[in-house]
């Protein structure tokens, strides 16, 4: 399983803070994104590329090519606005 987390505006849009996804067929962050987009509706909007989405694997900011494997924690969130 892969643990997937959503933060801030994304969490509100998707009405979901976290979920567990079967890791079968998911080998990179991009493949996770593709699978989420395929859910259609708001998922297709959020992950369709129109709004900036940052990605982290195991709490490190990464790009879409990064590999994911069973047990990983993957997170999606908007550009950060702290400080």
């Amino acid at each position, binding site marked *: 399983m892969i643990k997937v987390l959503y933060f801030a505006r994304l969490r509100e849009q998707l009405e979901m803070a976290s979920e567990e996804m079967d890791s079968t067929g998911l080998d990179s962050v991009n493949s996770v994104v593709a699978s989420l987009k395929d859910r259609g509706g708001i998922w297709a909007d959020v992950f369709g590329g129109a709004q900036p989405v940052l990605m982290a694997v195991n709490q490190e900011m990464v790009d879409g090519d990064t590999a994911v494997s069973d047990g990983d924690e993957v997170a999606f*969130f908007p550009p*950060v606005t702290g400080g």
Partner: protein
Amino acid sequence: MNRIKVQTEPFDIAQVQDELRADNPAIGAVVSFVGLMRDMNEGDQVATMTLEHYPGMTEKALEEIVQEADERWELMGIRVIHRVGELNPLDPIVIVAVASAHRGEAFQACEFVIDYLKTRAPFWKKEKTADGERWVDARHSDSDAEARWKR
């Protein structure tokens, strides 16, 4: 002593700076940055703000930023404290304090840490205005500020 901290409670600016320089007579400079909540953003009056973060990753990101500053400059101490949760105008949001023998290093490292924090640490601000709640958008000026340090 912990160099970074994420907390809901207010922090004591004086205490942070005092601890940083305590008992080390080799320190010649302490530079600190305090970021405060403003009551205006993009032309609108802001009543309150909520700061969300990604527990675990936030601490990791801050540690990495501090570590990188420590490698780039000759420093004698760094502290970063960032608040999360509910905030009001005038509230300090973040403090970055850096100690070094000479001032040049402390100034550069302090600005570096806050510039990187602004674009790399997973915090998100949501503000409440007369029109309701809204997420604060990231600023281009912050990416520009971060880009200055690339090497």
